[in-house]
């Protein structure tokens, strides 16, 4: 990737507040849009700002490229205060993607992608090269799409063009405001996956706004959960937020199924593998029987010459003497690999009605076993807030949780709308 060489910059919010009516906020009659926000997004990471509507996440985003100016506090990019920089120059160095995409309908796709390079006075040839490179990067054939107009593209294609346009001048930072919010769930899922793959190579610093906690968990290296009044409720990795919500609000916002959500973030490689007792056809039956009896499962796993699983053999099915034969094996257990999420592994085990899954490598050779019990142990290990009784205690201590009507994200949304009206 020669064209996109600039990697991310550190973005820092330092006690940033925004009020649309500072006097009223001081009196306490109008809540701040953003209230004393301090957080640091490390270079090259995706930080998702998530929360119900009216929580200040979009306001926070727009203060980075100064579409909105903070009332107080400082935002820095690699240590440089954004307010010290010339406005248009600052914005041209920050990629910007919005939900409605905002492609220029009177420009072709190629011209749209080259928007910022054109503003920066690149030669026509360089503009064209860059827009073709970026169209290819986001998976659109330049020869096919370059000369079309936005109205001729599907929603998903337009969104890809929006990402390409934001990347055109190789900015260190991208601001993405609900970038995949306007497409259907199947397209959204594909765009999310494509974007995560793209980010592995471009390594930009990305601030990503969404109201969808599942999208936040999927996309974020870091997740900042906002609550109404522009308060940062929690900032951490998706796993930290799911395992240990800092307040009742966060716990409710991430939802009662946060355990399941964690399962989809953790992979088989995150739990210690249990060594498998294996045996091959032709092995001595008496020795295999002994090994099966010693193993915690009461079975041996029969494998072929390349160590690929053939099936389980119960101790009682092994004759007292003679040799093991392949016909003794019951091919039941599902096989998983180290990249399989714990959610998928558990689901496969439940479907097969077994307690144990066989972990195999790329060639299909057995690496070890994963069990329902091991997954359950893993889930307990990281979870610091096991019951809702504890959450109530946290809530009493947490002054921000005074808004009792915010019982779920939907109701919080409603409350936010009413407050805004």
């Amino acid at each position, binding site marked *: 990737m020669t064209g996109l060489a600039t990697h991310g910059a550190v973005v820092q919010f330092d006690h940033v507040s925004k009020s649309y009516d500072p006097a009223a906020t001081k009196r306490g009659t109008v809540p701040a849009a953003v209230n004393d926000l301090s957080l640091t997004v490390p270079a090259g990471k995706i930080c998702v700002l998530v929360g119900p509507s009216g929580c200040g996440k979009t306001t926070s985003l727009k203060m980075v490229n100064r579409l909105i100016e903070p009332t107080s506090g400082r935002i820095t990019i690699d240590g440089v205060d954004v307010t010290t920089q010339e406005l248009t120059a600052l914005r041209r160095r920050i990629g*910007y993607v919005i939900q409605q995409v905002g492609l220029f*309908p*009177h420009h072709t796709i190629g011209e749209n992608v080259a928007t910022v390079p054109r503003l920066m006075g690149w030669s026509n040839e360089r503009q064209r090269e860059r827009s073709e490179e970026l169209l290819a990067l986001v998976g659109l054939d330049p020869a096919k799409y370059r000369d079309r107009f936005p109205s001729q593209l599907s929603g998903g294609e337009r969104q890809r063009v929006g990402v390409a346009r934001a990347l055109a001048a190789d900015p260190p930072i991208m601001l993405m405001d609900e970038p995949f919010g306007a497409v259907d769930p199947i397209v959204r899922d594909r765009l999310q996956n494509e974007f995560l793959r793209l980010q592995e190579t471009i390594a930009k610093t990305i601030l990503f706004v969404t109201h969808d906690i599942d999208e936040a968990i999927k996309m974020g290296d870091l997740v900042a959960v906002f609550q109404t009044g522009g308060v940062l409720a929690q900032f951490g990795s998706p796993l930290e937020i799911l395992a240990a919500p800092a307040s009742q609000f966060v716990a409710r916002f991430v939802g009662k199924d946060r355990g399941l959500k964690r399962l989809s973030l953790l992979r088989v490689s995150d739990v210690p593998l249990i060594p498998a007792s294996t045996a091959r056809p032709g092995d001595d039956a008496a020795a295999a029987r002994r090994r099966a009896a010693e193993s915690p499962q009461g079975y041996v796993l029969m494998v072929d010459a390349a160590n690929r699983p053939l099936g389980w053999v119960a101790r009682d099915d092994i004759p007292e003497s003679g040799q093991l034969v392949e016909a003794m094996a019951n091919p039941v257990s599902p096989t998983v690999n180290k990249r399989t999420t714990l959610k998928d592994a558990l689901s496969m085990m439940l479907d097969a009605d077994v307690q144990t899954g066989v972990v195999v490598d790329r060639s299909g050779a057995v690496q070890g076993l994963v069990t329902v019990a091991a997954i359950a142990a893993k889930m307990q290990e990281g979870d610091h807030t096991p019951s809702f009784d504890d959450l109530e205690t946290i809530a009493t201590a947490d002054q921000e949780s005074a808004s009792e009507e915010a019982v779920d994200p939907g109701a919080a949304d409603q409350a936010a709308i009413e407050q805004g009206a």
Partner: protein
Amino acid sequence: MPPGTKIFDVGWVLGHLPGIWDRIVQHLTLTAVPLMLGIVISLGLAVVAIRRPATYGPTTALTGLLYTIPSLAAFAILRPIFGLSLITAFIPLTTYTLLILFRAFTSGFGAVPTDILEAAEGMGYTRRQRLLRVELPLAVPLIMAGIRLAAVTTIGLATVAAVLGDTFGGLGQLITEGIQTFFPTKYLLGAALSVLLAFLVDFLLVRVERALTPWARARVAPG
């Protein structure tokens, strides 16, 4: 009409082609200059109105007021000042376009979707770049609708400029003379040419609009 007069004397028309052509050219001048002036003035007023929305109401009221002044009265008022000159014709014909054109420009700018404006701002367009490269091109369909209406209206109104006499009178002069001399060929010809001219100009403006907005018709994917 004296008895025996033909309703339409083709022979007279063929014998006076150069004079008729002059009237057409005069009429086009009476239309084109006020239209150009109207476009420039309205664009300026519209840009002021989008930057300072408080001016929108008063500007609309003023252009509306100018529109209500009877054209004959306007010529009568201006004639003592500017005499039988083109200026006397241009001033009212220009002010009559302002109401239509100012509204066309402001509604054209107003119809540009906010997400596109926000995207332009967020990507670092300066205000002037945004106006010239985004707002103006996207406002073209509504602006052109206003220009077509103003052009056709002005072609009709310009016949009244006949009161300015022989030198600048345009097709209106043909009509007036025809009525005064009870010669139907002249006023029928003047009216017909005026209508034809309106159709022709409108047709040309549609072509201009199409050339300016290739994107507006790009709906079906090529290839």
